[in-house]
């Protein structure tokens, strides 16, 4: 599903965020990327999601080599992923429902179908009752659940998250972990970059540990 070979990412100025890392993630696995701040977790997530490109090495997702991908093909690759960020990247000029409908509009679904599927996704994360609320009126945990609903509404093959519980209290963080576990149980591949110990315990060894850009 995801195969990285000798992956290196060097930023302009010479800073090497990732150096010569190789790993493989099978379909349906739940894998954690851990490490201290600056270890390269976010960079790796961005490479997998094609938000950034590797300097060298290859990264193959669903049989497609992302390193050799044309620029115009990148949006279609990203649609295979459900992306969740630490800062959620929600849009505060529209309702929770409209936020979740955005990936469906991008995929070209009719408005009627988009509403139906967005409501189902909101129901899944327990936010259907708040569909008309502006995200700014939601708590931190609810905002993260809304971001998850937006990530899963297009039925992605990979759920990719960067520190999804970093700013949440313990109870909300536990809710989020359980949501991810639910998606993992139904066969979705889950890749989470985190330094939260609760996740490490849940994943029981399925961990990619980074240190100064190297896999240890």
């Amino acid at each position, binding site marked *: 599903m995801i195969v990285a070979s000798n992956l290196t990412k060097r930023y302009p100025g010479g800073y090497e965020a990732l150096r010569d890392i190789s790993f493989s993630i099978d379909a349906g696995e739940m894998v954690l990327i851990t490490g201290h701040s600056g270890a390269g977790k976010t960079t790796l997530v961005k490479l997998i999601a094609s938000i950034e490109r590797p300097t060298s090495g290859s990264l193959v997702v669903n049989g497609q080599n992302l390193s050799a991908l044309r620029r115009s093909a990148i949006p279609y690759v990203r649609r295979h992923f459900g*992306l969740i960020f630490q800062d959620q990247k929600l*849009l505060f000029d529209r309702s929770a429902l409209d936020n979740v409908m955005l990936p469906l*509009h*991008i995929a*070209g679904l*009719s408005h009627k179908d988009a509403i139906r599927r967005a409501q189902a996704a909101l129901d899944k994360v327990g936010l259907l009752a708040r569909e008309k609320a502006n995200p700014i009126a939601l708590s931190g945990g609810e905002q993260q659940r809304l971001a998850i609903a937006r990530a899963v509404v297009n039925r992605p093959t990979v759920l990719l998250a960067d520190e999804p519980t970093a700013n949440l209290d313990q109870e909300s963080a536990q809710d989020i972990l359980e949501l991810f576990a639910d998606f993992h149980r139904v066969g979705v591949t889950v890749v989470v970059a985190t330094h939260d110990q609760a996740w490490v315990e849940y994943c029981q060894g399925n961990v990619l540990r980074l240190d100064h850009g190297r896999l240890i």
Partner: protein
Amino acid sequence: MNPWLSQHRAALGLALRRLWATPFNTLLSLLAIGIALTLPAFGYVALDNLRELGRSASGVQQISLFMEVGATKAEVAAIENRLQALSTAKITFVPRDEALKRLKKSEEMTEIVASLPRNPLPDAFIVDPADTAPATLEALRQEMAGWPKVAHVQLDSAWVKRFDAFLRLGKLAVLMLAGLFGAGLVAVTFNTIRLQVMAQAAEIEVARMIGATDAFIRRPFYYFGALQGALGGLLAALLVLGALHLLATPIGELAALYGGSFTLHAPEGSEVMLLASLGALLGWLGAQLSVSLSLRSFD
């Protein structure tokens, strides 16, 4: 509904909502575009009316064909046949006796005509060509002059040429104005869209991350630019129609003072549609330039 159509419908809806969301800004932009398009559009309509006025002015674009004095009836008939073969022309035959009668009616000429031993005037034809372009008229004059038993062909080509040169100058001025104000329209749209892209920066960033193509992101801005341009074009057409309505009475009165009548021609429906389409095209161009430049900052 297929995804492509669904996305276009959604983009059009979004563009309409954005136009409606800031009515004051939209009104100001439409006024700027409308006024920019009004000047060349009004110039075009004025030239069109002038061209019509030139065409309808009595005698100014007629060709007079004079037969030789000794031409027989058969020879005159042969020339008439040739003239009738020019299917686009209107022909009036003036027999030499009729011409003399007209001359006699003139007070200053009565005595001179009475002293003449015989009628010195030839048979003549007056030709009103359908195509009044100077080059066509001149070609026609030369062709007629080569016909047998034709003594002289007269065309007031200097007047026609002057009038045509004036129309061409006016046309050039209108084109220059149109180019200048068209660029203004592009600039207005460019700026409006640039501000919109800045205001939608968060949405564009998120949409790109979750798989939006460039076309998906650009589409609503293109629709916005084209809609704004088209509405500006329609506003320009309304302003031109308003101006023509105000001018109709004074121009009619002026024409009456010269013993004639003249009615201003308003632009036709197809011309209004053309103006709106031109506005839409320029608006789309402004949007295209603006989005291309603005989206570079997201790369």
